[in-house]
């Protein structure tokens, strides 16, 4: 849960170790299930691809949550990366998918550095509001400078080549899908390792006891900046994948509701949880699409109610629920929920 998620891992008891391996098994099963989606449920492939892209961006927001900071403007980096990709494709129609991805992430990281240098001085609500302000400035620019950015209708992003090959849509989408899946596993694993690394540990201390860091002679700003960069880059990966999947980028990528949605998904999945970011994104997208398909014009109402129920009755998010179920099953001593939620 939020309050406890940053605590360093206690010595694992045997039972908790068993729990941990159960969890790894479940994760593996989940990834395999996702990998099989194009074969067993091809109509879900696009939806899940979008959810994975969004999940990567949510992972970026999740990282900041570990330091107790909430950004209401991370859609900025999502959008920067998407637009970098679109501009690149417009000027270099034969560009490769990998190049689009790298350029997008680099764009997100650079803007993350520039914005980060300012915002790491602030905490709490001011941190959130400043991020919001930067994202809204970018949004206004995208809307306003129509002749460059295409205004509210955005820019079409043609299909990039893959390793020099021009693919048809089905093949290209398969490539993107498995690329997203690989990135999810790889970057998720990397983020977990980063949390466990010395920098990651110090980063998470910002939430509980920033002053202690200063006594230790460490600069909380620099530590926060490194986490901020990582989170911006992850949002960039998500934005780039989303743009290539959709084939179009619009200012809506940066609109504040999308930033709020990312925080929403992070909390839904289990704030601070890496797996939760992806599980949350999957559930969110599925609920959203099916609510809008079958409940016509009340999908927002359903989604809002869903969120309220989660916050009021299961503030640990979906990962919190899953872990308490697993704890009961394995009849182990109640371990630290937050640690489990990782």
């Amino acid at each position, binding site marked *: 849960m939020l309050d406890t998620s940053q605590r360093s891992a206690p010595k694992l008891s045997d039972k908790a170790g068993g729990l941990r391996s159960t969890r790894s098994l479940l994760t593996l099963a989940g990834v395999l299930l996702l990998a099989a989606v194009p074969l067993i449920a091809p109509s879900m492939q696009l939806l899940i691809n979008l959810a994975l892209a969004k999940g990567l961006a949510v992972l970026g927001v999740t990282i900041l949550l570990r330091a107790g900071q909430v950004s209401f403007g991370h859609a900025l980096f999502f959008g920067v990366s998407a637009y970098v990709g679109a501009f690149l494709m417009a000027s270099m129609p034969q560009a490769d998918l990998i190049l689009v991805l790298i350029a997008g992430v680099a764009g997100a990281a650079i803007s993350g550095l520039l914005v980060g240098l300012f915002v790491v001085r602030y905490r709490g609500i001011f941190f959130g509001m400043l991020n919001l302000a930067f994202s809204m400035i970018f949004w206004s620019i995208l*809307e306003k400078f129509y002749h460059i950015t295409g205004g*509210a209708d*955005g820019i079409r992003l043609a299909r990039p080549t893959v390793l020099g090959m021009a693919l048809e*849509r089905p093949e290209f989408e398969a490539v993107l899908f498995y690329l997203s899946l690989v990135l999810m596993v790889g970057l998720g694993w990397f983020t977990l390792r980063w949390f466990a690394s010395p920098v990651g540990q110090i980063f998470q201390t910002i939430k509980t006891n920033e002053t202690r860091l200063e006594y230790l002679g460490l600069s909380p700003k620099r530590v926060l900046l490194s986490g901020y960069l990582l989170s911006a880059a992850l949002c960039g990966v998500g934005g780039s994948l989303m743009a290539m999947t*959709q084939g179009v980028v619009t200012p809506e990528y940066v609109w504040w509701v999308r930033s709020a949605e990312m925080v929403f998904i992070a909390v839904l999945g289990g704030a601070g949880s890496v797996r939760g970011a992806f599980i949350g994104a999957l559930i969110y997208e599925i609920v959203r699409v099916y609510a809008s398909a079958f409940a016509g*014009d009340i999908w927002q109402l359903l989604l809002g109610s869903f969120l309220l129920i989660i916050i009021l009755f299961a503030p640990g998010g979906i990962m919190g629920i899953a872990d308490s179920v697993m704890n009961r099953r394995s009849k182990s001593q109640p371990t630290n929920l937050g640690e489990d939620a990782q």
Partner: protein
Amino acid sequence: MMKLLTTSALCAVLPLAAMAADKPETLKIGMTTFLTGPASVFGVPARDAMDIFVANLNAEGGINGVPIEVTYIDEGAGAEALTSEFRRVAQSGGAEIMLASISSGNCQTIAPLAEDLQVPNLMWDCGTQRIFEENEYDYVFRTQGNATSEMLAAVAYLLKTNPDFKTIAVVNQDYAWGRDSWDIFHTALEVMKPDVEVVGEFFPKFGSPDFSTEISRLQALRPDVILSTSWGGDLDTFVQQSFQRGLMNTSTFVLPLAESSLERLGPSLPAGHIVGARGDHYFLHPERRDDADFQSFMEQYKEATGDIPVYSVFHASQAFAAMQAAYEKAIADNGVDWPSEEQLLAAFEGLEFQGLGRPLYLREDNQGVESQLMGTSAQTGDYPFATLENIMIFDGDGLLPPIGETSIEWIKGLDASFVDTLQVETYDN
């Protein structure tokens, strides 16, 4: 050239593919429309009308005995939901034909998607002229005109009715439609009436709740003509605020989409301003209002919704009519019970059809040719809102660039004589 190649390629495989399809239990179609968001002022009336068209046709036995079933997709739920829903309905939902969409941005996203998914798609309402000028499609058709024909009709009407104006200002919504429509209008004005001076260009953000500052500036500038291609709440607010502050007494407004706001604006749209309808769409269409099918639909619609239909209803009627005509033509041409996809696509080539307005046809580049109705507002007292007088209906043929030319380049080559080349019918009201 590409087109020719693809057509001949299609012909080559035709003997194999041209077998008739099995007659389905129902003809499933998908339609994207705005059920939420600001553009639901168009989307909801279109859906209500579609329900009526479908019910009417099904009551007559459907198409060759096959009833129709529509799935609606909300364009207001965001681009991700739209594309994934479009796919779901087109692929696993079993829809044979799709109608998408209202937003030009969505059309730009969906046209290549439909092409890749190989599902016939009728662009039923979006206005951007770019679609067929920048790309070629085999599966995408537009059952209405586009921004070029709509704007040129507005320019022509303005020049015919107000030949002496000297200054113009524009207040458009800040998105592709607002910018593109001004590009076309402005380019046309420059070649057809080069002495007009543009004194102000304003692009307040889409959904702006307040135009007070723009109106103050316009009052200081005093242009002869004020153009606004805005629609929905933006147009209502702009006209209401202009009316409240007397701007409509000093300038002539040109409002190419105001037909869709007539009822809501009520007495706030005074007499003497130019109103358009994105086609020949008007609930008192001078050539159609005495026809039985037109009248019975108006009654049905009034009963179902309590409102008068706006242009999106007419656009929906055209898409529906085109679909019905294509199926019937394909069935008749091939002598089959139910056409295969190839037969259906072939039927769309040069298809003629008629919705609630004048008859239309599809050009070789899949662009529809649609007549354009323009008029001047009048408060006659017959209705609690403005109706039109001095109505002109322009023939659609002269309003589109030749196939293969882009609109702006074509317009740049026109001159003041263009207006006289247009086929036009004039009606007092």
